């Protein structure tokens, strides 16, 4: 891990997605940028590298940033209007013809409108299709519940042959997108709409299937995905003030799960908190719980949306209201610690 941490030197800024001011330990915040821009840039990099990367548009290309690819490679961009179910089928046909197709829309439609297509055409075919699911989580903001998808981690990870990526910031999302394009098999990548802290660098290693310890610690492990990783780092600093040494793990690949890193965390820390911008049902927390009860059960607490739909509001207001801040992670960590034997 030191290899990772070494890459993290740099000036310390202050802020969090929720405006509180903190000093994250090894990961200084380097401005804010929405993860969707990483997806858009990653597609362009792939397009420059390979001539068989193709992209299907879903009439929200400017929101999920497939517009970048469209501008650079108009001949390999195909507008599919508003038909997410069939776009998934077109992508399958392209993949079965040797192309590497990406289709992106809001996760609410890129994972739910086409679930049968993902299951049977994409995954049962083991077709080399990549789906980008944007506008993930409550932080979508004022558009409200219909657009705030909080269920797709469960919906995609249950499918055989699927690889599920939930990168933590702009840089990692770009790397994850490129890695997805160079990986053979069905992949779903989850990213968000609003600007969130950028804290990994271009040199931070990324590997599909590998979770990363972003902060060492032996009292408790916080396993997070997406922008909640930043909240976890902020929470770890808060906990440090109380003398609690929290390990922070970036679980950017949810399927397949990096069981080695998770098992080590359970054994060495003895308690785990998971943090995700998703329902606490069947998401990252469930993924880790399912593994640990079979290998090494430890007390866990889940930070996430508590089985309710979202609503309109400012992203920061909503993250607070639905219990998705560093403060919520701190409280969960204290609770998990108190349950440690």
């Amino acid at each position, binding site marked *: 891990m030191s290899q990772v941490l070494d890459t993290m030197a740099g000036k310390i800024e202050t802020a969090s997605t929720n405006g509180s001011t903190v000093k994250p330990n090894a990961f200084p915040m380097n401005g804010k940028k929405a993860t969707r821009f990483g997806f858009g840039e990653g597609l362009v990099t792939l397009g420059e590298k390979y001539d068989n990367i193709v992209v299907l*548009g879903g*009439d*929200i*290309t*400017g*929101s999920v940033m497939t517009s970048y690819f469209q501008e650079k490679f108009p001949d390999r961009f195909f*507008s*599919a*209007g*508003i*038909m997410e*179910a*069939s776009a998934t089928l077109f992508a399958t046909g392209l993949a079965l013809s040797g192309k590497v197709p990406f289709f992106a829309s809001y996760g*609410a*439609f890129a994972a739910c*409108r086409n679930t049968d297509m993902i299951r049977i055409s994409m995954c049962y075919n083991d077709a080399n299709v990549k789906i980008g699911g944007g506008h993930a989580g409550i932080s979508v*903001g*004022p*558009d*409200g*519940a*219909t*657009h705030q998808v909080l269920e797709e981690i469960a919906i995609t990870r249950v499918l055989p042959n699927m690889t599920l990526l939930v990168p933590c910031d702009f840089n990692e999302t770009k790397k994850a997108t490129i890695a997805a394009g160079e990986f053979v098999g069905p992949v779903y990548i989850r990213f968000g709409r609003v600007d969130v802290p950028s804290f990994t660098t271009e040199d931070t290693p990324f590997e599909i299937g590998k979770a990363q310890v972003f902060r060492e610690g032996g009292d408790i492990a916080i396993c997070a995905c997406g922008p909640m990783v930043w909240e976890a780092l902020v929470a770890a600093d808060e906990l440090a003030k109380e003398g609690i040494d929290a390990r922070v793990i970036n679980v950017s690949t949810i399927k397949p799960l990096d069981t080695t890193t998770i098992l080590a965390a359970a054994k060495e820390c003895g308690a785990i908190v998971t943090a995700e911008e998703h329902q606490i049902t069947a998401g990252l927390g469930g993924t880790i719980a399912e593994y640990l009860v079979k290998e090494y059960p430890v007390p866990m607490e889940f930070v996430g949306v508590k089985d*309710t*739909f979202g*609503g*309109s*509001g*400012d992203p920061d*207001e*909503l993250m607070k*209201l*639905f219990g998705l801040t560093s403060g919520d992670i701190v409280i969960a960590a204290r609770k998990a610690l108190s349950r440690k034997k």
Partner: protein
Amino acid sequence: MASFNFHIYPLETGFHGSTRPTAPADLVEAYGYNGFTPFSNSADNTDDYIASAAKEIRRDIIRSLVLAKSGHSGGPLGISDVMATLYLGGVMRYDAANPWKAERDRFVLSAGHMAPVLYSTLANSGFFPKAELLTLRKLNSRLQGHPGRDMGLPGIETSTGSLGQGLGIGVGMALADKHVSKNDHRVYVITGDGELQEGEIWESAMFASHWKLDNLCVLVDRNHCQIDGRTNDVMEVDPVQDKWAAFGFHTIFIDGHNISEIRAAFKEAAATKGKPTCIIAQTYMGHPISFMNDDYRWHGKPPNPEQAEKALAELV
């Protein structure tokens, strides 16, 4: 035989926390929202009366969007003449004071992103105080970014926002009215033209004609615009009228900004028996605001304060 009775309206499960957002008092004052008397809904209303209502509906759309700082301007402004006619021209039968009254026609905004025009129309028709329009898209507002039934706003028959779903819900309501309750209620559904790219539209159309739901009237907002551009560039939906005809609908093509054409079309729809009707209304996105008219880039943008001022100045 008994019915299984259950509570349907209104839900208020969508509140998280306790307080509702409040409208800025100075603006409520400035817009004269407190003294406002709702428009009447009558077949006797003149076209001019409806046109003036449409203008007020548009003003309130602008007023709510500029405060919300996000949301959709183009579609709502373009469909305002249709909405004014539907709610105030004696087309829809409802009791604004008793919105869930069993004896009513139903309206479903399948293109849920056009919520601002629905809210503005409902407020101007007396379903709720206009001041509430100024809470659009705010935390715990009953005016969600997309219609949310979980907020219990009077007049919101169903949540929508995922394109292609509202029509099927309206078809289910029409089925309940015609073949289960066997009453004479009518169901009105408005869809976008980009929305026609969703296959559920055609599933629902096929079902509606199979079951001869002549109590269903679909109106397509044919503005040739969607998010990524002109509809024929993004995904051609023409020949729209042939499609609906081939799916068993009586079809009518009209100018969606001509009140008397709109009224006549709704009359013709109500008089058409044995099959559902689809009205294709040619409109312009953002109409009639000079700097928005027919420009797809206004699909999902709110006006900034300067633009709002200019727009309101054009709506006097």
